[in-house]
């Protein structure tokens, strides 16, 4: 693939796009929020099962580009067994990475999110990567309205 496109489309992204994790409707979810970017056509439904402030299960359904699909798929893995406070920290870390402020982030905090760092060079694609996280933010805050990052 053409040189610097690799920075955006890393192998982990292809992997999550082809085989999204936690891709199912969660029947017993106690949080459910829609995320929709109508201009792109990225659409997802995020399901959470939260117990005592801890995310015990996370899943999603929907369709979108490789960046948005990989982002939400990765996210559903990363937030498992995290408290709402911890996910808020992850969200902030993610936000710094995708807006090019990753020098403020300690290497150990990056973890799997590192694979999405490439989007900072593609301003039009940042909203694809952030849709999942803003939807999560709404789910944690118990906002029912559909989320958009456009």
């Amino acid at each position: 693939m053409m040189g610097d496109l690799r920075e955006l489309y890393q192998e982990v992204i292809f992997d999550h796009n082809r085989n999204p994790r936690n891709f199912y409707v969660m029947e017993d979810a106690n949080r459910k929020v829609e995320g929709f970017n109508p201009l792109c056509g990225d659409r997802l439904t995020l399901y959470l099962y939260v117990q005592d402030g801890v995310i015990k299960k996370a899943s999603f359904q929907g369709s979108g580009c490789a960046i948005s699909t990989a982002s939400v798929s990765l996210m559903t893995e990363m937030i498992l067994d995290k408290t709402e406070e911890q996910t808020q920290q992850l969200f902030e870390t993610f936000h710094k990475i995708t807006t090019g402020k990753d020098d403020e982030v300690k290497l150990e905090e990056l973890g799997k999110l590192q694979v999405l760092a490439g989007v900072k060079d593609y301003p039009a694609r940042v909203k694809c990567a952030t849709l999942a996280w803003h939807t999560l933010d709404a789910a944690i805050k118990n906002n029912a309205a559909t989320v958009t990052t456009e």
Partner: protein
Amino acid sequence: MTVVTNQQTVSSQAVRATYDVASIRSDFPILEQSVRGKPLIYLDNAATSHKPRVVIDAISHVYEHDYSNVHRGVHTLSERATAAYEGAREKVRQFVNAKSEKEIVFLRGTTEAINLVAQSYGGANIGSGDEILITAMEHHSNIVPWQMLCERSGARLTVVPINESGELIAGQFEQLLSNKTKIVALSHMSNALGTINPVAEMIALAHQYGVPVLLDGAQAMPHMSVDVQALDCDFYAFSGHKMYAPAGIGVLYGKAQFLEAMPPYQGGGDMIRQVTFEKSEYNSIPYKFEAGTPSIADTVGLGVALDYLDSVGMDQIAAHEQHLLQYATEQSEKIPGLKLIGTAENKGAILSFVLETVHPHDIGTVLDHLGVAVRAGHHCAMPVMDFFEVPATTRASFAMYNTIDEVDVLMDGLKEVIKVFG
């Protein structure tokens, strides 16, 4: 068939003997650049088109030599600016073959033109229980102004459906026309599908029911000769920026009898004859609809763009683009998993498609790395996306300056996309 040859559009400039795309390309400075290290291949012309050097120079010339406000002063500059501005109106009149220059209203673009008709004509003539007939392939700008009117007036929006090819379903239009229908508003050419509608027949049919017709000509104008008298449309709306003219200038053509009867759209300077605190007397058409200082230099630029199109010849442009479309369509059929969205028999140079396994945005990003600019998204036609049950499409839209070699780069790029994502 709605492509009408219009002898009057051939201006004093000689039509070029042969279609020389290399020479045309050299008239467009922006095309001489690289994007991400590759020569720019601009295939997003349905969104907006580039400007030839003569148009760019004309704008500079106005500001450097002839700029002042129009229809105001007695001084030389104002007279020159007014002459240039009104000269552009006459050029537009000739280009679309309107009966009178009074029927040419300068506005910001197609969207403003449709809003003007919806608010002014619609506001005065459409009420509760009336119907406004549009089609399922309209751009949002030919849906939303009518919905807003419906909300205000209690009228109802009715929609002519399309088939799997993206064509209006024959017979449905006439079925939906009734004595409740107060206006028909439809696209001459669809921006998302490329479909060219049989507008002349539809207008004739609507007129049998006494219903006026507005055509959204934003997409059609850059690609074919348009003769508003031959079509017998009552309103025709189009934008400069899609036809090699500056952004921010557009036109509403309206038959004089309609424009004269319609109330003003906005109040302000230039649209009045006399103002007292008791009452204002409105100016005659088209000035009644041109409140405020217009986009003078851009309007002059529009006139120059029309001269440029005349010098190349609209029929020659149409033939060149049809050749590109035919070649692109044939080549696209060789790409596994590619599905064309919009396969109408009568189609303009738009190739809208989806790939089975790759989202349009990923296609758009990979193509951008090859220097190829395409549009990925819903193209402001969400009901069309819903009909075809796709979230978005990738759209390559061609212009007078595109080449067969560029189509080849696009197709190679799509093969690369499939290799990477497949």
